[in-house]
């Protein structure tokens, strides 16, 4: 056989040549040498080692397929099928074939079959088994990493709604994405290598904000900020920025910076806030306007009524006029209640801190009620002698609560007593806590009622033929007022049988300077004494006038002179004069707090009194404006009131009427 003949002479010198023998036997690559008929002619030591066979002679002479079957039992070598395929391919094509085999165990092998051909005859096949497990694993890892990196790269680069980029450890821009380009305006070439502080405004730069943010990020592992950032063209946007330090094996690689453009959401937010503010402003304006619009004619009506009551009326007329007055007063109270309530609800209500005496307040309210209480009801007051003579508080509001509770008590009590009790329950270095109780023997509160007592617009008598009038706001206003004074309000049934006890507490600040306090207190006492006793209206006027300023708008110099003289005679020291309506408007608006009242002639050149009044009202001036008019036309004077005047007085001005009107207007000014 030519094949055998060819093989023998070749093997001879190989056997003889130790070098060739060593080449096969000692190669570190596990190798099997097969002859053309695929019989094993030689195996390397390394092959023996990995195949687990102990005896070379057992392997030599084996058919290749048997050899691989034998070796597969050790499971360290690749499957027989792969080796077989490579050998066959090498034999048939006479070219080098190799194949990578990955086993289930994770081991990887490179199988290489090298055909040795002499004179177009296949002499032998050198079969190598190279363990490439480690390389394979590395390759896999690499592939995986490349894949992941690529995915993230694509993700980051294509995101347009976020600017995502990396900074090096010193804060210079290292990467740039589409989003960053889209809303920062820099191209990749522009910005890479520049410091990220380029995005910040002057103020932030001066403030050292960029550096601080990196420091904060390093310290806290993250830094988030909202603020203005600048584009390449200098325009700015409202941004949310998150800076995170990036480490690899504890070495700082840099920072990732994610910036979101919040301009639109911020705009939407601002629009929402603006809309809300506008709505609430409109609401309060509406309330203020409405109450003003209602109160102005009410005041006019009531002042006219007061004047009417002083004229010669017969019994019938007098009775009717009294009915009008009473209803008008109630209506005014209702309007004031609603205004107070809406002010309290909107939080625009504040209590002043004057020097007050609780005893005085209670006594004054008590006296007012004493004058008109029902004959079957005994009105009593029990005042703790320890009540402070003076403390800081709001006398008007304190009075309002007592007034309210006391009138409730008298309203619902037909017989028995109404008692007002005030005591000092706590005293420390800063505050006096005062408990005021109003106890009555009236109809009381039905069981289950106390829960809703202080709820606005609630009244127990909701029947169509309501016996007791009111808005149901009184107690809820009292509650808010008591809370504003740092106190509480409450109810419990009268322990002496039927009736109610309404109580409230108030925390009043101690006065610091005693000498000043005493002086002020003297003043309070004397004024309250004056206002309660029936004194000469002229004297009363002088007391009220002392600190009031009046603007007199009158074009006729002669009348101006007379009015000035009259006002000074009434005790007004600060009277300013305007020659016409326009000057009156200018003067009154120059400093809206400078006048307490305006006396306005109706017919004046340049701008008449009615249009001046309208302008002042439109511009929000609330002080009383009294029209002076010689127009005897019926109904005309009344129309001035509808146009914003508080009251009117006929010319020639009668002094006692003027006093009445001024007293009414100036006194009412307070609560308004």
């Amino acid at each position: 056989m030519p094949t055998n003949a060819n093989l023998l002479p070749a093997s001879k010198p190989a056997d003889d040549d130790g070098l060739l023998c060593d080449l096969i036997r000692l190669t570190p690559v596990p190798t099997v040498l097969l002859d053309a008929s695929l019989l094993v002619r030689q195996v390397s030591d390394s092959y023996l080692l990995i195949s687990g066979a102990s005896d070379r002679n057992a392997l030599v002479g084996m058919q290749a397929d048997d050899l691989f079957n034998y070796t597969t039992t050790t499971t360290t070598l690749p499957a027989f099928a792969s080796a077989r395929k490579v050998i066959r391919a090498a034999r048939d094509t006479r070219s080098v074939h190799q194949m990578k085999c990955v086993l289930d165990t994770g081991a990887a092998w490179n199988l290489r079959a090298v055909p040795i051909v002499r004179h177009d005859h296949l002499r032998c096949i050198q079969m190598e088994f190279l363990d490439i497990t480690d390389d394979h694993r590395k390759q896999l890892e690499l592939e995986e990493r490349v894949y992941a990196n690529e995915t993230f790269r694509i993700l980051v680069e294509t995101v347009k709604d976020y600017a995502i980029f990396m900074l090096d450890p010193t804060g210079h821009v290292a990467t740039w994405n589409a989003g960053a380009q889209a809303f920062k305006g820099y191209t990749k070439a522009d910005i890479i290598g520049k410091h990220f502080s380029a995005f910040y405004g002057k103020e932030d730069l001066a403030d050292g904000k960029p550096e601080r943010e990196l420091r904060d990020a390093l310290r806290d592992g993250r830094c988030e900020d909202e603020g203005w950032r600048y584009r390449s063209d200098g325009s700015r946007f409202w941004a949310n920025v998150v800076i995170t330090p990036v480490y690899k094996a504890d070495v700082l690689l840099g920072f990732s910076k994610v910036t979101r453009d919040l301009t639109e959401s911020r705009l939407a937010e601002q629009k929402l806030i603006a809309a809300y503010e506008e709505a609430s402003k409109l609401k309060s304006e509406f309330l203020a306007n409405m109450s003003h619009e209602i109160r102005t004619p009410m005041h006019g009506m009531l002042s006219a009524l007061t004047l009417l009551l002083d004229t010669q009326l017969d019994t019938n007329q007098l009775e009717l006029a009294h009915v009008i007055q009473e209803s008008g007063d109630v209506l005014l109270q209702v309007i004031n209640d609603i205004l107070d309530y809406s002010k309290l609800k909107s939080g625009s209500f504040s209590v002043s801190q004057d020097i007050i005496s609780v005893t005085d307040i209670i006594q004054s309210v008590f006296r007012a009620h004493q004058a008109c209480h029902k004959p079957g009801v005994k009105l009593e007051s029990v005042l703790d002698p320890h009540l402070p003579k003076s403390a800081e508080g709001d006398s008007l509001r304190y009075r309002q609560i007592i007034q309210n509770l006391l009138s409730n008590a008298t309203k619902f009590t037909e017989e028995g007593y109404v008692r007002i009790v005030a005591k000092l329950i706590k005293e420390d270095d800063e505050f006096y806590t005062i408990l005021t109780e109003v106890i009555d023997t009236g109809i009381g509160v039905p069981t289950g009622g106390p829960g809703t007592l202080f709820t606005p617009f609630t009244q127990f008598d909701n029947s169509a033929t309501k016996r007791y009038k009111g808005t149901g706001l009184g107690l809820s206003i009292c509650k808010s007022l008591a809370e504003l004074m740092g106190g509480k309000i409450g109810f419990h049934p009268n322990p002496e049988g039927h009736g109610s006890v309404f109580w409230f507490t108030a925390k009043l600040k101690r006065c610091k300077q005693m000498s000043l306090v005493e002086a002020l207190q003297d003043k309070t006492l004397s004024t309250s004494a004056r206002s309660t006793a029936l004194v000469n209206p002229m004297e009363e006027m002088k007391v009220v006038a002392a600190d009031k300023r009046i603007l007199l708008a009158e074009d006729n110099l002669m009348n101006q002179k007379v009015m000035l003289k009259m006002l000074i005679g009434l005790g007004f020291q600060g009277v300013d004069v305007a020659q016409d309506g326009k000057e009156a408007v200018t003067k009154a608006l120059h400093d809206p707090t400078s006048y307490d009242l305006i006396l306005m002639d109706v017919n004046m050149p340049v701008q008449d009194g009615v249009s001046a009044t309208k302008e002042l009202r439109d511009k929000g001036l609330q002080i009383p404006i009294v029209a002076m008019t010689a127009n005897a036309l019926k109904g005309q004077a009344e129309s001035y009131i509808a146009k914003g005047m508080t009251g009117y007085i006929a010319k020639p001005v009668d002094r006692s009427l003027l006093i009445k009107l001024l007293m009414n207007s100036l006194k009412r000014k307070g609560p308004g």
Partner: protein
Amino acid sequence: MSASDDKSGDIMLIPGAEDTIDPATFEQILEMDEDEVEREFSRSIVYDFFGQADSTFKKMESSLEKKEGEYLKELSELGHFLKGSSATLGLTKVKDSCEKIQHYGSQKDETGVKDITEKESCDKLKTTIAQAKKEFLEVKDVLKEYYKDTD
């Protein structure tokens, strides 16, 4: 304070005063005087009025004669102006006439209710201004006498 308490004499006792002066209003002015003999304040007011009235009547007469532009409106305003001054002093007759001038000037009848023609206005204004002036001179005499002015 009432008129009878007035030590320097009661103006209402001067002939002609009763119809032309409203005592309450005038007394109110008198009460503003600090010195009841000198009566500096009320005197100055009264003489201011004399001056005002003289010039106003002159303006009225010339305006009614020329009939230029919105002369009726101007007359109405002048009437209103003098009405205010005379009312302050309580010079009732002058005040009432001035009010009529105001109405006629705005082409209304004497009560200010019904419309009248321009011609009617002019006719009525002519007589009423003359009347007002006459009334003014009458009351001027009374006041002058009161202030012992012998000019």
